[in-house]
């Protein structure tokens, strides 16, 4: 059996090839629908179709045309083929319903024009099933007149009586992406700030706060994978997330996926009709809160899971053990280890420095990094010989150890870049361009791609150097993936992101390359620009994350 896969990504600008894991998932889905073994399914074609917000705003005709073009490129469509149309909506995309109409119109037109060559089966994967009286639904009904149509939402629901193992579907779909556990690890932000916490009945100041606002969905998916087999109708999931709204939202998202009760144990009373308890915590340190919560239960929870845990007490391989609880020894599974730096009773040194206390809500609008946070991160990372200097000069013997700095704080820095972009109202369709490499550039672009849900193109260093040095005889490998992506007509406006700009040559190279390809450059965002005094023709678009100062005493 032959299948043809089309993945439309609304709100994307760059055509990303499908991964092996994704193909494996579509293969499984096709074999389930066709009722054959997975080995008997052949993937004949797979395409990724980015549809930018600008295209959607301009009427969505581009979505129609892009899908028609892809469908027309199928070499020999047969009646017993299966078409898989997966429609993924980026977090930042606009006008979803509007673009869906264009996509389904394209599918309908294609089927209408190719009578006799219409595939026997077509499966459409959508985020949510369309409501009954929706225009989209009417379009889908028309398509269903010419082929057997299966519409499945992200949780495996289908409205036409087609029975698929929903849990299995959801599990396989989640596993076809990067594992949620890994995504949480990468996306959890260790915020630097001046926070207040109640500890032993007094207020103390703490320096870091773990913020999961960018991994809510991943936490929800992780919890689904963890609980889907243990949670039954008699299970109650109790969560405690007084300081972590992200956990509350992640747990509440489980409500529509798991057939069990979910309550906020800090505010709600336990009902009577449950058999087993699962307790979910945002953070666990000394266990005092846990013991207080356990007092509320009449039986020991079957499972206790905390997203974050400190190394305080007995702690080994993702399990923290507490011995003196109302139920004796209790084990708490945890995902991530957290550093919990108490900086003392008030007034702490941050109070003395007049640094106002932060709340996570306030942090979400402060884009630039303040001096204390920047230099404390740098002091912790230390100095080392410059990694990957341009080939025309020697490495700086004592430069900031940006690899260490970004390994420890990359997510924090990436989140600040995102805030800076939001504050300056850069369009959602901007494509981020940054240098590639195994070093800090790679670390930063990786964090950005995880966090920003925005398209990122990484350009090799040697290419950047060629453009920075204005070498006339350029031989660019036009078949390389980065080049194809950058040349894509959907890429129109770019934001250049660099890590530590010492002389500005990386930025200069990227500017020259992007300008040559006739794309516009909206902004240049280095983490720090050590040479603000060097004449630049992009000063009006320069937004360093930390403002290094330079005085000229001449």
């Amino acid at each position, binding site marked *: 059996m032959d299948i043809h896969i089309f993945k439309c990504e609304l709100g994307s600008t760059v055509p990303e090839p499908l991964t092996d894991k994704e193909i494996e998932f579509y293969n499984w889905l096709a074999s389930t629908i066709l009722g054959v073994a997975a080995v008997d399914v052949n993937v004949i074609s797979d395409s990724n179709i980015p549809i930018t917000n600008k295209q959607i705003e301009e009427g969505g005709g581009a979505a129609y045309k892009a899908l028609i073009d892809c469908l027309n490129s199928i070499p020999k469509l047969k009646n017993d083929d299966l078409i898989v149309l997966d429609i993924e909506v980026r977090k930042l995309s606009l006008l979803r319903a509007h673009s869906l109409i264009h996509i389904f119109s394209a599918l309908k037109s294609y089927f209408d024009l190719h009578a006799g060559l219409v595939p026997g089966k077509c499966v459409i994967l959508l985020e949510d099933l369309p409501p009954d009286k929706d225009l989209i639904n009417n379009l889908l009904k028309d398509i269903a007149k010419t082929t057997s149509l299966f519409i499945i939402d992200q949780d495996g629901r289908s409205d036409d009586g087609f029975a698929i193992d929903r849990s299995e579907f959801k599990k396989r779909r989640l596993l076809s992406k990067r594992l949620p556990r890994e995504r949480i690890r990468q996306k959890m932000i260790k915020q630097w700030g001046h926070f207040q916490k109640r500890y032993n009945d007094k207020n103390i100041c703490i320096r870091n706060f773990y913020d999961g606002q960018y991994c809510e969905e991943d936490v929800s998916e992780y919890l689904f994978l963890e609980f889907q087999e243990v949670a039954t109708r008699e299970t109650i999931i109790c969560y405690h997330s007084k300081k972590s709204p992200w956990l509350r939202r992640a747990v509440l998202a489980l409500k529509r996926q798991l057939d069990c009760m979910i309550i906020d144990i800090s505010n709600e009373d336990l009902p009577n009709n449950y058999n087993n308890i699962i307790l979910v915590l945002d953070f666990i340190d000394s266990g005092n809160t846990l013991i207080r919560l356990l007092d509320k239960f009449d039986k020991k929870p079957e499972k206790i899971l905390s997203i974050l845990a400190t190394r305080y007490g007995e702690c080994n391989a993702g399990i923290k053990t507490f011995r003196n609880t109302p139920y004796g020894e209790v084990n708490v599974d945890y995902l991530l280890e957290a550093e919990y730096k108490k900086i003392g009773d008030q007034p702490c040194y941050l109070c003395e420095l*007049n640094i106002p206390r932060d*709340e996570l809500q*306030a942090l979400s609008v402060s884009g630039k990094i*303040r*001096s204390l946070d920047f*230099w404390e991160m740098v002091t912790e990372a230390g*100095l080392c010989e410059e990694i990957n200097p341009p080939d025309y000069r020697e490495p700086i013997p004592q430069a900031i150890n940006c690899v260490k700095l970004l390994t420890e704080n990359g997510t924090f820095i990436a989140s600040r870049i995102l805030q800076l972009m939001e504050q300056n109202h850069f369009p959602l369709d901007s494509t981020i361009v940054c240098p590639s490499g195994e070093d800090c550039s790679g670390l930063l672009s990786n964090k950005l791609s995880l966090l920003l849900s925005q398209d990122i193109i990484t350009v090799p260093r040697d290419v950047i150097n060629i453009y920075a040095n204005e070498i006339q005889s350029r031989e660019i490998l036009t078949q390389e993936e980065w080049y194809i992506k950058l040349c894509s007509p959907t890429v129109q406006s770019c934001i250049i992101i660099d890590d530590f700009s010492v002389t500005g040559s990386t930025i200069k190279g990227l500017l020259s390359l992007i300008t040559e390809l006739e794309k516009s450059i909206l902004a240049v965002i280095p983490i720090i620009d050590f040479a603000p005094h060097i004449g630049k023709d992009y000063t009006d678009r320069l937004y360093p994350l930390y403002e290094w100062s330079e005085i*000229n005493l*001449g």
Partner: protein
Amino acid sequence: MSGVKLIWGNYFMSQESPLISCNSILHLLEGTSEIDLDLKSMMVHDLLSKSYLIEDKTARDAIILRALRYTVPEYFSPLISMLKDEDQAGLEEQPTRQKEMKHYDVLIMTVIPNEFWSLKKALDLPEDSNLELARDEVQFWETEIRNDKIKRNLRCLVSMIGDARNVNAALTVSTAMKYYDIGLAVLVGIAAGPEIFVKVGDVIIGNQIIDYEGNRIEPTGPQKRPEVISIDGGLFKQISYFLARDEIMDGNFANFYRPIEEELLSVKLPKSSKINIKRAPILAGEKLIADHDTLQELIDKYHQEARAAEMESIGFALACENPPKIPWLVFRGISDYGNPKKRNQKKYQKNAALSAILALIKYLEGHYSPLNLKEF
């Protein structure tokens, strides 16, 4: 600063004040052991460059002096220490608004215990003040009010003058200004108001304070010399926008006030009335007005738009206008009509104070933005 050219990026220091920035770097230099020499040099470079943006010359010089310790060869460092010692000696004699002055976004002051009780309840302050903050017999409380405009908590310093009269108000606010770096000072409490224009519980936000006591005694009789002092133009605009909100306009503020009154106070304002918040001149003098005519006569003589009379705000405002000048506001809840019924209306003092305090909180939460926002 002649000969010095500053170069920086697009919008330097729109968020963090140079003083906080420099003190932060100094703190790391002084408090972190084993910083690599090259790293120290980078930090000092950044610090000294930023120091030129500090407006207060004394604070700037002190910072530069402290930073220089990290730039001279070790052999010469005693010279810097000598300079530092001299500089410190000078500074101790004359307190200035520099590093050791703790910053508060807002100073909130009430006058009498009934007002302070309402303030304490509304802000959920502890019974006892923070002893570490007490200065010259004046006690202070610390609290925070969430501000949606600048998306952070406002750090507030709270105190009570203790007794009526303008001199007391001036002395207390001067004490706060001497020891703390204040962003905005607000006097909040009760006042008498003309019965034909206001009712008990209404709130008057002073756009002008009129000192009606000034007179020159001439053979022909006293010649009026009123002192008039107006609030900052920026605050005036903020207050105007605040008053134009649906939740405030047409007495709608009552919807916010009533549930809190229900929770905190045993005496209630008449149920039917709406609660108006108005911007108007406030008459300030040394008279506790409780007769039939004086209040209306003062309004007729000094400002026909005046809607409140009390005994502290001119002292408070004049003290705030003294160097280091700080912006100020006066919020007054009408507790009586300045007539013989005053004694019977004393029971409404807590209500009137609460009304003014809640109006202030509403303003600070949703409409106040510091006039010269330099910090995070």
